[in-house]
């Protein structure tokens, strides 16, 4: 039987991104129990989201190292494609490229420490450390502490209670840089997660979301220079 849901693609996205209210999400799940087409699409998009997230984390981890190499490669590619034009300017160009390479390789050995990446966001700072939605939830965050500075793995740990009982359901853990760009997102159960991906030096805000609503906002630093 063909699916009768209007704006089906949009509804599937809203469900997967946690944008539906609990009642709407329940109604859509029930629909998917009887609609093979929607269930298949849900499974496909869910897996795709996991793969995209994995890929983005790898991209973030290699970002600092990769940038100088790709610049060198593009310079070399340019020379290779147009050798006749540059043959007389070769000596001067080689000298310039040598200087540029020295600078770029030096940069690649040490991570970028850009003060702008540590600038605080005033509209988020006022909410850091607060449990933003209580209601049926109570939340104690044990790690990371506000303002912790990391250079390796980052451990996230919290205890959640729902209606007074331990809550072991899923929370969406999201990490934003100080440009409010999402750099990592995952789903966590049992209140513990260790992030092994390497983040670029900077200030990060992190949130715990449940059904699309943020419960908690925290912050930490990666490789913050000692002042």
């Amino acid at each position, binding site marked *: *039987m063909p699916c009768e849901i209007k704006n089906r*693609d949009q509804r599937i*996205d809203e469900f*997967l*991104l946690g944008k539906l209210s609990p009642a709407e999400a329940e109604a859509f*799940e*029930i*629909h*998917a*129990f*009887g609609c*093979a087409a929607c*269930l*298949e699409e*849900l*499974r*496909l*998009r*869910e*897996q*795709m*989201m*996991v*793969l*995209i*997230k994995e*890929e*983005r984390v790898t991209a973030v981890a290699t970002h600092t190292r990769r940038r100088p190499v790709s610049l060198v490669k593009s310079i070399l590619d340019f020379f290779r494609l147009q050798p006749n034009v540059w043959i007389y300017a070769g000596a001067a160009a080689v000298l310039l490229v040598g200087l540029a390479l020295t600078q770029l390789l030096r940069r690649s050995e040490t991570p970028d420490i850009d003060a702008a990446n540590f600038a605080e966001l005033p509209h988020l700072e006022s909410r850091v450390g607060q449990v933003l939605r209580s209601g049926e939830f109570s939340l104690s965050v044990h790690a990371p502490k506000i303002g912790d500075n990391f250079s390796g793995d980052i451990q996230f740990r919290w205890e959640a209670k729902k209606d007074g*009982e*331990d809550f*072991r*359901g*899923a929370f969406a853990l999201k990490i934003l840089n100080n440009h409010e*760009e*999402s750099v990592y*997102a995952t789903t966590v*159960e049992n209140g513990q997660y260790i992030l092994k991906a390497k983040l670029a030096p900077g200030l990060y805000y992190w949130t715990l979301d449940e059904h699309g609503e943020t419960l908690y906002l925290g912050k930490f630093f990666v490789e913050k220079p000692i002042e």
Partner: protein
Amino acid sequence: MRDEEQLRLVQGIQRGDRAAESELFHRYQNPILWKICRQIKTDRENINDLASEVYVAILEGIRKAAFQPEKWDSLEKYVWGVTNNKIRDWFKKEKRDRKFFHADPPSEPIAAAVEEYFLENEELGRHLRSRLAKLATQYKEVLELRYFQELSVAEISAQLGLAPRRVSERINYALKLLRKVYEKKNSGSSILGLFWLLLP
């Protein structure tokens, strides 16, 4: 599912018709496993146990006339409700004694259905990984903005300087490219349906 189909299935199960039980199993095995796997990250043994509990509860409910179409709106809602309750029970029991049901081992068709579900997921993952790697940058970019950064179409439109309609078209085309390679194998389910008939 249309009402008359639900009634036929429910009445068949209440009469003890194994073919109707098999049809119910065949029809709902994937959504039940999808919901369990989505909500509980656990090992395959626990998934087997929980799926067995769900199937037994659904069949017992229907046999004892706990399922009444006028009360439940639809069979989907009933099956979803039983699955949801069993998942809640799992969390309660898991918290109490860190071990789920000490039930009999899962029946062969259920274990086979779980195995098939995981194999399908692995195959889907391989296909998607390969297609994502080959996807043109413009399509990958919109998928990342939509599903990783969780931006709306309007926000993506503003960021890329494209009309919202173009953004939607690009996302839909990217999904179509990913979907294209995935040929779902439905043949296994029908074989599992036959297994159900062999149960005591």
